[in-house]
Each structure stands twice: as structure tokens, then as C-alpha cells.
């Protein structure tokens, strides 16, 4: 796996704004204020209210959103100039796995991820099956993704992203659509991954298991530090 001992994502005055709609005289609308951050810890959580800018911050990290100002560098790669290389380094898991799983069955979706490795067909299929088996999903390999439960779908989405062994894993509210049992299962799974993991979440228990927590509020970082203090700060913000 492309997994050196330590990875680093550096945001230098990285901000996101959208142009005015032209109807009024307002200037660009700021989604994320210019941020200076270095994300190097193995487990980082991003918490904050809906619409605070969490998802935009995460989307900056693999080039899904490009900064309007400043730069974002992943292990030295500029997301704006070397987007393809960044996406090979940073895997991204969405809140709703159904929007992420683009093939009809789990094995085909994992194979889709593996296509870029240009493996022989038989080897690609075997690796996809092995990958699913590693997550206890072998028996669901040929099922329709519509027949899977929410937890199973999220696991398949995770397996498909991890099949190409990204060095960094970014997850956007991975437990929002899961019940308590699946949330616990996901927590255990994430804890055991060798990748650097950066995730946004409303699950404060999950956030508390991280080394560092960023509290996002109104497009800026309201707090950056250990989980205990971060959760207190977040509770104070929404009180």
C-alpha cells in the first residue's frame, strides 16, 4: 500500500467562495473562509452543524472542490494542478453509499475501482472477491446493491474505495444513515485501518475516538484540538 509512516495535508489560506448570482449587487458568497491547517494526525474528526462547511472542507482534500483562494497540498501534491495524483492518494467515502456505488453489484463495483490498475480480467475479479471477503461481504458479491442494507452498502462503498489502497481516507458523515449496530461496526472497522482517516461526523462518540477534532462553524474553524475540549466547544456553539 502507498502508506508511508506519516501523511500530511496542508491548507495554505485555502478558502472557497461562489460567484454572485448576478441578480443583486452582492459579492461572492463565502462557503469556507481562508484556512491555514496542517492535517497530519492518523485520526481526525470534523464536527459542526449542518451547513457549517464540513463537507466543503473535506471535498477540498481530494480535489472534488478546488480552493478559490490559496492552495491545498496532499503529500506535496497540489490538488488544483495534480488532481489525478491526489485522487489516487486520497480515497473518499460519501454519506449516501447509493450515490457512490455506480455498478449493479458489489463485486462489479469493486472491480470498477480496480480497472485503473489494468489487471488481467481474472485477477481483477479475484482481487475484488478477496476484497469483499476481507469485509465479510463475500456472500453478497453478486447481489444487487439495492438488496443490501444501509450498513452493507456503506461497507461495500468502503471496500471499493480501499481496494486501490489509498494512503489517506476521507469520509463525509459515514454513519449518518446507519443504525446503532452498523455505526458501532463502522467505528471498529475505521479504528483498525492503516490509513490516515479524516472524517466529518455528527456522532460525537466517533469524534471522541480521534486524536484531533476540528469544530467548523460558519465556514471557519471555531476550535482545533483534542476531542474532549472540541466536543464541549461544539455543544456550547449549538446550545
Amino acid at each position, binding site marked *: 500500500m502507498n502508506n508511508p509512516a506519516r501523511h500530511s495535508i496542508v491548507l495554505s489560506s485555502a478558502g472557497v467562495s461562489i460567484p454572485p448570482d448576478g441578480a443583486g449587487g452582492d459579492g461572492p458568497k463565502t462557503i469556507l473562509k481562508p484556512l491555514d491547517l496542517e492535517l497530519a494526525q492518523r485520526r481526525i474528526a470534523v464536527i459542526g452543524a449542518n451547513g457549517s462547511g464540513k463537507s466543503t472542507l473535506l471535498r477540498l482534500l481530494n480535489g472534488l472542490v478546488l480552493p478559490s483562494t490559496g492552495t491545498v497540498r496532499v503529500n506535496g501534491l497540489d490538488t488544483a494542478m495534480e488532481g*489525478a495524483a491526489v485522487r489516487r492518494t486520497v480515497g473518499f467515502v460519501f454519506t449516501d453509499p447509493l450515490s457512490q456505488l455506480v455498478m*449493479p453489484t458489489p463485486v462489479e463495483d469493486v472491480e470498477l475501482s480496480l480497472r485503473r490498475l489494468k489487471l488481467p480480467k481474472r485477477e481483477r475479479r479475484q482481487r475484488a472477491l478477496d476484497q469483499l471477503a476481507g469485509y465479510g461481504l463475500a456472500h453478497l458479491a453478486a447481489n*444487487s446493491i*439495492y438488496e443490501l442494507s444501509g450498513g452493507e452498502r456503506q461497507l461495500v462503498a468502503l471496500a471499493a474505495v480501499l481496494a486501490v489502497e489509498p494512503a489517506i481516507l476521507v469520509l463525509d458523515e459515514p454513519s449518518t444513515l446507519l443504525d446503532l449496530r452498523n455505526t458501532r461496526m463502522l467505528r471498529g472497522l475505521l479504528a483498525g485501518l492503516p490509513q490516515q482517516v479524516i472524517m466529518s461526523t455528527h456522532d460525537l462518540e466517533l469524534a471522541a475516538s480521534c486524536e484531533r477534532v476540528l469544530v467548523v462553524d460558519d465556514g471557519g474553524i471555531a476550535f482545533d484540538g483534542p476531542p474532549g475540549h472540541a466536543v464541549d466547544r461544539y455543544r456550547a456553539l449549538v446550545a
Partner: protein
Amino acid sequence: MRGHAHLVAGYVPGHSPVHRLPLWLKAVLLLAVAVLCLASPAVSVAAGAAVTTAVLLVVVAGHALAGLPRGRLWRAVRLMLVFLVLIAAYQWWQNGAVVAWQVVAAIVATVLASNILTATTPVDELLDGLAAVVRPLERLGADPERFSLTVALMLRSIPFVIGAFSDVRDAARARGLERNLLARSLPVVIATVGYARATGEALSARGLGDPDPAEGWHHPASTQ
């Protein structure tokens, strides 16, 4: 979205003789079905009707031989039933009953034959087959992988759109708006556009459609 939508156009795992046929042979047979149905009426109306009927029977037999559920066969026909009735009525009025039967049977035979192909061929195999067909055009700038991925996404999207129709219809019923055309169509359009955006974002996030590192091509987003 409701879960039944996947039953349309999806792969049905199996080991039937049809499943075991190579993709190229299934494609040739599908082409033969279409050519026979389209070309035979040029000989005579009677010949066209006879050949198309025979082709339809062979296709239905192929459906059974592939071990596909009968419900799937009926669903494929039911989806086009309104159009078939309209076409049959028009043809009967304009050209008589025999031509009406030939036209409708030709459409059903061709759709069922393509249904057999998608039901007995894993999408991944279809992708490889399509990429192989387009590969000779690579010198002219065509990207076989991107072409085959586009077709696969189209196949994947059909069940979603059908499912969106079902969901929106139920939602309209629940609100007593089942006769309101806007309430039954606009949410489908919005859901479909949202689905297309989410799919594009998911593909981009997974680096699908990105170039080979050796090619030095940059993702469109990276040049903004």
C-alpha cells in the same frame, strides 16, 4: 429509492447455456434478431410476419433456456405496453392486422433479445466487450474505457429513473395529487439531475475517468 427497480435490465447470475456463450456470439445473435425482424418485411408482408413470429418464438425460448424468471419477461413487455398498443393501433389502421403484428412482434423480439444479453452477461464483461469494440478507434482519439464506462452508467441509471418514477407516483398519491402531472414529473427530473451530479462526483472522487499517470492529461477540474 424503492428496491424493486433493479429487476429491470440487471444481470441475473447463472450457469445456463446462454450464460456460457461468449459475449461476441450473443452480440451477433442480437444483431441477427434485429436484422431478420427489420429486413424480412422487404421480401413480402407475409414473409415478414412469418419470420418475425419465428424469431420471437426463438427469443422467448432463449429466455427460458437462460433460466430467467418469467416475471422478468413480462416486466420487459409491460414497460412498453402503452407504446405497443398505440403502435399496433396505428399500424392496423394504416396497413392492416398482419403488418401491425409484424411491427409489434419485431419490437418485442428485439427488446427481449437485448434483455437476455444484459441478463446473462455481467456488466464488467460488457465493459470489456465494449472497450474491445472501440479500441481500434483509439488512434482517432477515442477512449475505450471511458466509452464503456459511459454505457455501463447508462445501464445503471435506467433502474434508478424507473425507481424514481415509482417513488414520485406513490408520493403524489399519498398527497392526493395522482392526477397532477407536475407533481408526478417534476420531482423525477430533479431526482434524476441530482443522481447524475452525485454519480459524476462519485466517479471523480474515485479517480475514474482520470488519465493514466503516464499520459500527462489533467482532470478538467484541475485546470479551473
